[in-house]
């Protein structure tokens, strides 16, 4: 049990920050954009491995540049974001897969949290906490921005700046989670817990708490089960998350039709 204490802690904190962020991604209806966005991390990690620096750094840089690009495109062009994401982000996954050394590819795609060093683990936990604090600080403004940009602006909220902060938070959350579940499944770490919470929550508070509780539960259980059965934690996490989603979907349908 002791050998998984640190990975367990990392998974719990990373999942907490990612699922909290996910609740806003769901409110903003950018579930698919978020999912595809995580693919951009792959070429960054590949280059980092090739040139022997930390893959986390590679992922962060690539993601930050990409979200800044998204931000500019959203304000400057009339192109649909979905189209841009659909074309370029999957292409970057392809490029990443080609240049990534083969023995690292599976780990980059599906993650392996147990390969983190102690220092990396502690940094991940610290960054997750910072992300959670930041989100709690801006969540009212974020929600208002997502409900009505005009009303937000009418009380002096700088929507553009707020959206950039949100996208950069997204980039950080993806970079943090990628060692846990990998580039291919990262979107699910962000989206599924929040989507599950939305099925049953009526209030913002229940939605945010629900999302974090589902994310943390699935992460903890995922690490534990994968340790016992010697499996890769990422896919186990996603399967547990998806099961929670199905359960909440069932609850929602029962509530609607009863």
């Amino acid at each position, binding site marked *: 049990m002791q050998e998984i204490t640190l990975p367990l802690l990392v998974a719990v904190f990373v999942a907490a920050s990612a699922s909290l962020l996910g609740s806003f991604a769901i*409110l903003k209806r950018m579930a698919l954009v978020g999912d595809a966005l995580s693919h951009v991390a792959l070429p960054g990690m590949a280059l980092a491995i090739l040139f022997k620096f930390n893959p986390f750094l590679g992922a962060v840089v690539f993601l930050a540049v990409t979200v800044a690009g998204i931000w500019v495109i959203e304000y400057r062009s009339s192109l649909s974001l979905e189209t841009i994401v659909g074309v370029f982000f999957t292409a970057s996954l392809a490029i990443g897969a080609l240049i990534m050394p083969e023995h690292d590819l599976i780990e980059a795609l599906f993650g392996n949290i147990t390969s983190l060093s102690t220092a990396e683990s502690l940094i991940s936990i610290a960054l997750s906490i910072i992300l959670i604090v930041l989100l709690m600080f801006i969540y*009212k*403004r974020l*929600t*208002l921005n997502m*409900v*009505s940009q*005009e*009303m937000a*602006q*009418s*009380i002096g909220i700088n929507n553009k700046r707020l959206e950039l902060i949100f996208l950069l938070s997204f980039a950080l959350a993806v970079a943090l989670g990628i060692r846990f579940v990998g580039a291919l499944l990262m979107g699910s770490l962000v989206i599924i817990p929040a989507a599950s*919470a*939305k099925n049953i*929550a*009526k*209030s*913002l*508070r*229940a*939605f945010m708490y629900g999302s974090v509780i589902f994310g943390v539960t699935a992460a903890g259980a995922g690490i534990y089960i994968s340790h016992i059965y010697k499996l890769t934690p990422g896919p186990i996490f996603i399967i547990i998350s998806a099961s929670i989603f199905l359960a909440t979907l069932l609850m929602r349908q029962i509530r609607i039709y009863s």
Partner: protein
Amino acid sequence: MKILEVKNLYSSINGANILEDINFDVNKGDVLAIIGPNGAGKTVLLKSLIGLIPYTGSIKWAQGIKTGYVPQRMDIETDVPLTVKEFFRLRGPSITDEKIQETLDFVQLDKRLLKKGFGEISIGQRQRVLVAWAVLGSPDVLLFDEPTADIDIAGQESIYKMLYHLQKNLGLTVILVSHDLNIVYRHAATVLCLNRKNLCYGAPKEVLSTEQLQSLYGGEKVFFQHKHHL
């Protein structure tokens, strides 16, 4: 007392002129109604007034004036996880339960509504919630963009009663986009007819002649002036 002075206002969106050379004033405590056909630039004008979209020309508010804005529509899902009370709380920490309660009374909404989901209440109720939300910021001027097709006639009528009540009791100045000329006749001190340019401006009974309305709405006989109404 002049609360707002607009001179030579131009606004364009993606290179297309939406507003051309708009001029008008608003006095404190007045109701100004902006009327005009679809696509005339009414919403654009309202948004320029509070700086939501860029413009050229001059928009001068009296010093220290706070505005409250009620948008025409909101694109939210019916199952958005946000209660009405939480929606009020998004304004910031200064919004207390007492304040919310007091404001609900102003817009004649039941406090049981606070626990409901923001997406599940009726459009008419949402309209009142939005007005209450704007009023919570203790504005001097309320800018109200009337929803077009979403509310039935009875609902519209009662919204205007409520606005009128707010104007009288809180001394609010109201600038509203309206489609209902009856309302304009009954409640507005001044009316601005808009079809990209200002076509008329003044007291409703002075400027809203049948000919004027025909030229504004493109020849359709949408409304006749009935002397006995005035």
